[in-house]
């Protein structure tokens, strides 16, 4: 599996296939026991400077203000405080949170917290952005809005993105390339290029297009077997396995 510079790559696969682990390996948070992970041709040996990570659960510091949370990245990297705070204000404006600088995370809604996390991840100007089901906990409408904003912000600096999700529609709407992973020993099963033109516009509307439906059908064919197999493994003791036939919408 290779991700080109500036490419938006989504990874889908059944639960427990190692999608999240892949991200921690790329980030340098864990070391691979077998195989190699290389960034820019160099094997990953530690946490790289050009990488940002957006986690599934909130990783904002609850005792810091919104501004403090966003300014954290530059401050850790030795940017002078004044500069870091100015940058943080700029980023908060870009994610539409001007006026919330002095709030604490628990005072914000789930979607707003995700915006803060997005600003905190992008302020370091990463060349690689790793996202582990970042919008998984959001309601459908908020998720769609956040997806649109992510695409807009991504388009400005074009980092390489690895976006882990188990929402196939989200994957197709956002990505240039969708990687399907196998159940159990998580290996790459297939890679699908998403030839939908950019800019994509609203992710709510793109999914009604004919090409979107075709791609969805094609990738789901591939993903379905893996999901069935993973399900069979977890419910082996629970009786016969129902076949997954319906394409979820």
């Amino acid at each position: 599996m290779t991700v080109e510079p500036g490419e938006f790559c989504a990874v889908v696969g059944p639960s427990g296939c190692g999608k999240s682990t892949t991200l921690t390996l790329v980030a340098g948070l864990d070391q691979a026991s077998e195989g190699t992970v290389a960034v820019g041709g160099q094997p990953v040996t530690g946490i790289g400077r050009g990488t940002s990570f957006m986690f599934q659960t909130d990783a904002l510091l609850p005792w810091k203000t919104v501004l403090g949370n966003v300014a954290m990245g530059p401050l850790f990297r030795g940017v002078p405080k004044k500069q870091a705070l100015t940058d943080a204000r700029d980023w908060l404006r870009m994610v539409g949170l001007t006026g919330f600088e002095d709030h604490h995370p628990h005072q914000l809604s789930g979607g707003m917290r995700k915006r803060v996390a997005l600003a905190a991840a992008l302020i370091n100007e990463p060349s690689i952005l790793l996202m582990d089901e970042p919008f998984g906990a959001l309601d459908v409408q908020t998720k769609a809005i956040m997806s649109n904003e992510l695409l807009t912000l991504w388009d400005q600096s074009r980092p390489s993105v690895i976006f882990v999700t188990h929402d196939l529609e989200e994957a197709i709407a956002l990505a240039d390339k969708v990687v399907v992973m196998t159940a159990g020993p998580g290996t790459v099963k297939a890679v699908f290029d998403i030839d939908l033109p950019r800019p994509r516009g609203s992710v709510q509307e793109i999914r009604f297009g004919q090409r979107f439906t075709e791609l969805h059908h094609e990738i789901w064919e591939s993903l379905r077997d893996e999901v069935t197999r993973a399900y069979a493994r977890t419910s082996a003791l629970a009786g016969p396995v129902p076949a997954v036939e319906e394409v979820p919408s």
Partner: protein
Amino acid sequence: MTRRKLQVHAAQIAVLIFVFGGWQLFTTLKIVDPFFFGKPSGIVSQAVSWVRHGTSFGSIWLQIETTMEEAVLGFIIGVAGGIVVGVLLGQVRFLSEVLSPYIKAVNALPRIVLGTLFIIMLGLGMSSKVVLAAFLVFFVVFFNAYQGVREVDGNLINNARVLGASRMQLVRNVVIPSAMTWIIASLHVAFGFAVIGAVVGEVLGAQHGLGVLITDSANNFNADGVFAGMIIIGALALVAEWLISLLERRVLAWRPQMATEASAV
């Protein structure tokens, strides 16, 4: 709501009157011997006489000052030591594995008895009481700080690491603030231990302090004196508790509201 609160306060006052009134009544009627059990009015007059005429060891204020100075010094030293060692051992796995059996062993010792040892080593002055108080405080704070460091959300750590935090930045920005909830919670108990350390140290042997006053009263079969000393210590501990709650509210201001309700109990 306010009506309920009024009822609670009224009932609280009723309990107070019942206990002390009953005590006063029974001792006045000689059903219980006031010589051995003291008497509320006697306790008050004993306290007033200490304030007006002083005690056999100098003015009452000197006794209070001595005990408080020992307790506060012991508290500060114990808290600082507990936080530093707790965070260090929570962070450095090797150190904690090497030291943990020894810490458990020392913690299992009857620490009050160590007070006698400190008096042998450091004499009858204040230092032996300060060390005993610090020793008692240290363990309470240490175990909380250690646990607090261990319970830091791994997500927060990973996030800060990816953002570029060095080890020291991680400890200062993530680990210590996160463990602060645990550490502050331990301070309430810890100050109580500091006072116990100071008073017990004085009971074991000292020249000044409320503990000396209490032992002296006990040796003279002055039950009122023992109670008066106890009540003064209790009142001082309540003031300290209130100060710690103020600190807690300040340091943990970021927390959602529900936390203050729990501390009201």
